[in-house]
């Protein structure tokens, strides 16, 4: 479904992403982790055609992301970055309706309204459907944007640091949502995360990056170990299994 072949991004002489290759086919949650400046978001942005690719290729469903038509890709892959300012004053339902744009080009059909209603229900947003986005809290607004992405109804969903600015309760509910999208809707979800423990708790597979390269790529058990985490982050940690969940602990 998603295939990145030796993707490279150059800023001047520095290789922000350096020959990263990644293949994603099965439904599930894949977390990309790594220290600041490791190139996680840049890699995601190149796959999502938000940034031009300097070297290498990226394919979605066999379509070259730099060549394929925008709307054909938009029916296969969706991406959500950190929220940026909206120019229009929209209600939650308006925003979710935009998720249907690749399918209906702005003229919502009965089927689109069914999808919008489903997305509202999936994120428990029905009571807020007619509220304007600027009247919502940060967590609620984040949910509205995720609902838009779900209404887009793509097989693959890329989320760039969806836990930014969320408190622990909202962060957990966001990750549970991501999990449900993979389990109940069969989506291929890729999340860029900072917190190893969130990746360990909710992901099926972890891709760890350092200095633009993918250093480890595998199931949680293979990645979340004391040696690997130390190699990736350059920080000694303790990894313990707590109630069946690999957990990273830090010394004072």
């Amino acid at each position, binding site marked *: 479904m998603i295939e990145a072949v030796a993707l490279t991004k150059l800023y001047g002489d520095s290789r922000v992403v350096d020959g990263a290759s990644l293949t994603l086919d099965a439904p599930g949650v894949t977390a990309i982790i790594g220290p600041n400046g490791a190139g996680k978001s840049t890699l995601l942005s190149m796959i999502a055609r938000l940034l031009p690719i300097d070297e290498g290729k990226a394919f979605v469903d066999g379509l070259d992301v730099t060549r394929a038509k925008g709307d054909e890709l938009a029916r296969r892959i969706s991406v959500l*970055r950190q929220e940026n300012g909206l120019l229009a004053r929209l209600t939650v339902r308006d925003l979710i309706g935009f998720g249907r744009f690749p399918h209906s080009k702005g003229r919502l059909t009965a089927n689109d309204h069914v999808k919008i209603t489903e997305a509202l229900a999936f994120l428990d947003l029905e009571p807020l459907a007619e509220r304007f986005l600027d009247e919502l809290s940060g967590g609620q607004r984040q949910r509205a944007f995720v609902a838009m992405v779900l209404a887009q109804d793509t097989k693959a969903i890329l989320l760039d640091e969806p836990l930014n600015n969320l408190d622990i309760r909202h962060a957990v509910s966001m990750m549970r949502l991501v999990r449900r999208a993979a389990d109940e809707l069969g989506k291929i979800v890729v999340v860029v995360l900072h917190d190893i423990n969130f990746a360990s708790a909710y992901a099926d597979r972890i891709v760890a990056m350092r200095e633009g390269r993918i250093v480890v790529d595998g199931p949680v058990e293979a990645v979340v170990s004391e040696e690997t985490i130390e190699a990736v982050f350059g920080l000694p940690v303790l990894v313990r299994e707590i109630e069946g969940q690999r957990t990273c602990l830090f010394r004072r």
Partner: protein
Amino acid sequence: MADVAGNHVSAAAEDPAQVAPKRAARQHSLRMLAFLAVLALFSCALFMTLGARGNWSFVLPFRAPKLAAMIVVGHAIALSTVIFQTLSGNRILTPSIMGFDALYALIQTLMVVVAGTAFVTAADPMALFFAQTAVMILFALGLYGSLIGRGARDLLRLLLVGVILGVLFRSLAGFLQRLIDPNAFVVLQDRLYASFNGIETDLLAVAVVAIGLVTFAFWRLLPQLDVLALGRDTAISLGVDPVRLTQLSLGLVAVLVSVSTALVGPVTFFGLLVASLAVALVGSRRHAETLIAASLIAVICLVGGQTILERVLGFDTALGIIIEFLGGIVFLAIVLKRGIQ
């Protein structure tokens, strides 16, 4: 509209209490649009009839072109401003603040300097108009396309660049105007600072056709522009190419600015005034609603204002100054409000 048909579906599927606010919001903006339309028609009727004495066959040809020019210019300024604000991703910048009409003045001046007054006065006005517009589109794309097409979200930098470009174009034009001989200057001044009182009828016909075509093109682009208003990244994710859409729209905006500047000369803050009022009155959920409201408000301001000034108060040609004054105050208010937030 896009969701008129869909409303029934969602209404059937949901609790009616949740659908009610949406209905109310829609009805509010539709009522507001109807009210503005009535007010605009009323202004036009008043302008045509108030104080009209003598033979209608004299009054009509005398007043009708002026009315048509005001409607065309008002619509062009409203449309270009609202679209430009979407392209630049904020509600402060307008084509005039970014120096678009100063660019037009510079192109006009250059033409007189390079080709000479004899050529400019003798040439077919339509051919000339198209040539100017083509040059304007090229320059606008070259200068502003790279500036706002690449997702530059730094508002202060954009504003600064726009103001400086505007000053640069104005200074260059002013410099060249001092170099040319006085006769050429008079010809130029005639072309640059035309007012509603001296509309050329043949140019008006071209303007109506050009603006009609641009309006139709934008009408087709509206759904994509709605998506672009969500931000560059979201637009790409939804399959809209922001660079292509921005370049296409900038070209169309350049046509609108050329037409309105050619007809009545530069107006700096008028677009900002009508666009801000439109957003305040009907909101900004869909471009279609905001655009219609902005156009109607522009017509009300121009035609209504001109009627009151000319026929009721007996002044002449002061409308531009008053509108600029009000528009300037609105601009300051918006900037200050943003600063406080």
